[in-house]
């Protein structure tokens, strides 16, 4: 038995993977145990390659991948404790949700009865209880995502890997899936969630891994990273009918060092401390008695974060 009971759920040691001349993952080391971890990165950053390595689909060109201390390429036994939600949109459309989840549950060695009971339970957990006897082909996009999550949870795994689970979902489904993921984290599961949208990950977890061009760019608490970011020039876009009146009120405030009027009804604030700027924002707006229809943080996305991180090297 090569299982190390103290081994972390995910251990990646100096792993590289290249496809011919193209590098998918470049010398990444990572250990993850407990809680929800967001894997962030733009398309092509290496998230999918990383997950394929974790799921034993491909073999690392260099280094070791260990799940609970076992190499998933040569031994599928870790999947006894792992649930995987792929980014593939394809499902067996002719099956009902209940069928799909219970059939896959039986691959964990459950009896038909156990599988049916567990399937019903997890479908309830992801909020598909009412439609579980409908064919998957008739499900909405969000329902399809959730049935995929249900199949990954059916055996009560300790490690759950979700590849872009929010991709293409409407806001309601998005919220519901995020709640499911947060709930899993609260229950002490190790959860890996990939996304290329910072805001999504931010609403789920603080613990992130940022990949860029196959390299590990940053690892740790999202807010710590964000605080670093906050100390640098940042923009806040306010949509209002009286931008100049509001600008006068803001120019008095310490964190704001500049204003601009990019459009007739828009005010752009420039700051070096985003959180400080946000903390004064409500008071200034209320005192100025100007009506504001919308506040945006155009720099608060993955691209600007990456831009900062790469530029800061």
């Amino acid at each position, binding site marked *: 038995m090569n*299982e190390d009971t103290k081994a972390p759920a995910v251990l990646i040691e100096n792993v590289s993977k290249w496809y011919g001349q193209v590098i998918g993952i470049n010398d990444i080391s990572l250990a993850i145990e407990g809680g929800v971890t967001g894997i962030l990165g733009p398309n092509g950053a290496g998230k999918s390659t990383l997950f394929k390595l974790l*799921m034993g689909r*491909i*073999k690392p060109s260099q280094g070791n991948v260990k799940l609970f201390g076992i190499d998933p390429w040569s031994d599928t036994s*870790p999947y006894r404790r792992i649930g995987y939600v*792929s980014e593939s949109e394809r499902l*067996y459309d002719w099956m009902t949700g209940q069928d799909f989840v219970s059939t*896959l549950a039986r*691959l964990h060695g459950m009896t038909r009865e156990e599988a049916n009971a567990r399937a019903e339970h997890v479908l309830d957990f992801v909020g598909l209880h009412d439609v579980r006897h409908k064919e998957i082909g008739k499900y909405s996009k969000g329902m399809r995502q959730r049935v995929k999550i249900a199949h990954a949870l059916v055996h009560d795994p300790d490690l759950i890997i979700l590849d872009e689970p929010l991709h293409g979902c409407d806001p309601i489904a998005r919220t519901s899936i995020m709640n499911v993921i947060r709930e899993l984290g609260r229950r002490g599961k190790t959860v890996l969630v990939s996304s290329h949208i910072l805001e999504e990950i931010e609403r789920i977890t603080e613990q992130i891994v940022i990949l860029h061009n196959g390299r590990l760019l940053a690892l740790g608490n999202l807010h710590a990273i964000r605080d670093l970011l906050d100390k640098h020039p940042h923009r806040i876009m306010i949509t209002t009918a009286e931008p100049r009146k509001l600008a006068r009120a803001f120019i008095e405030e310490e964190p704001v060092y500049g204003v601009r009027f990019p459009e007739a009804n828009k005010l752009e604030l420039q700051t070096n401390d985003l959180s400080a700027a946000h903390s004064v924002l409500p008071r200034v707006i209320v005192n100025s008695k100007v009506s504001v229809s919308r506040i945006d943080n155009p720099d608060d996305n993955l691209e600007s974060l990456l831009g900062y991180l790469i530029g800061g090297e």
Partner: protein
Amino acid sequence: MDKQGRGLSETVWTQLDRKAGAITELTIRQLRNRISTWVVLGIGVLLISLLLAFYIDAIRTDFEPIDNDGDSEDWDRDGYPVGQELIYGTSDYDNKQYPGSADYIYLGDIDWNDQPRTHDGNHTWRSVSGYFTPSWINEEAENPFGFYSWIDWNNEVYDCPSSGQPFDDWSFFEDSVCILENGTYVMFGASFAAEGELYVQPEWTAEWGYMTEAFDVEKHPKSMYIDEDDIDWNGNSGSQGFDDDGDCLKDQYLTDDNSQNDDNRNGIYCDVQWIFDVNGDLIEIQADRNVDEDPDDSKHIGESSHRTFIIGTGKIAFVMILGLFLPLFLALGLVRDESENGTLHYLLSKPIHRGEFILYRLLGYLAIVVSYTIILVSIVAIITSIIGPGDSIIRLSDYPVWMGIALSTILVLTAYGAIFNTVGLVLPRYGVYICMIYGIWEFLMGLFTITIPSASIPMLSISHWAIQLIDAVVLIAWSDTPLIQQKADAFGLDTGISFFWHPPVHTLETGNPFVALLISVVLILSISIGMIAIGQLIFRNKEIM
């Protein structure tokens, strides 16, 4: 450790039945949900139904009694069938000769060098070349010979040339007659009835005899000469057979020894020699002409046609066509399609070995094609065993053969399924063409095996061994099949059984069909297992994007 305290690696190959059940069931349901599956299975049913329709049609018409020796015909249109003419020894090409017709009996002749060379008398003369001086001419007599010229005394007699000597100076037309001035006729090969004196020059010939009285012989109906001489055999070796219709023996009517024959040269006229080897196996049947030559068709041809149908259907329709087409459509994409559809990772993210996965997918495929084969074989078996020839209501002896056909089909479905699935894995895109080319090879080798089972190149094909399996089972279930073949060959009962069936070749010199059966089963199973193992090995080391 999982929640039951087992090590993770222990849980992969455990609870196989449940995992196998789940994937097998999933595969069955997937195949069931595809239209192409039903199209392929439907075409198979159609093919077998068509064959069955031909069989039913054949069994209704062909098993009517057939005149195998053609002796119910009446070639010379004298109203007497050939069979009856044979018994009476009359010609079936001459309508003047028929049972009861006046018959010419030979009395004497003058040959090339005989002495004396004159003869006096009242005779029917035949093929006379000489000088004839008649005292009485029977001008009413009709030609009893058919193909000898008969003198028409009123119209065909010419005056002889006035100069020169007959036979020396004249040259005559064959069969002609002229009259000399002294009233003597000079004849060249002429036949006639008259009284008088004949002189034959040396080196010329003549013959004479008399005509018997004609008598009435009842004309036999044609039907008397259909199936009139069945195969008489008591199961022992040696001289058997009896000329039931008397067309070989004829001794009732004729004394001429030449009318009887001993074609097989065993010293016994009109018999059938059955030759066995030391093991008691029939080697050859040698029949004298016209003995046991027109057997009961529903008994002999019926039986052998029925067997030919079963063997042919088993080998070509089941093994070579269904055996190839079902896996081509159902097994090629077993894993490949999952990979292309992007649904493979649901299955591979579970704690099952990739090798297990291939195995269970094949099990799911087999569950469908095996039940399909068994159902289809059973339907054909039941229908043909009820309407087939024979006295019993159901031909129970057919069932082992059908079971052998089902076994052989299932084995090739397994082997081809394993091969095609593996090819689909290795070459997802072009695999289908490779499989088609391979399928054509297997089909051709199957055809070669049917015609020349001992040829060595077809041994490289799976169909060769599957067909040999059927040959072996046929010999086990119907041990008298070689006998039926022998009878077919010896008595002209051609039903194709000698084409479609040969004794199994690969018996390790024992001649035991069970050995051949075992070799075929072991070999095809080994190929299947080997191909599954190769497929597993490839799949295990394949990176799935």
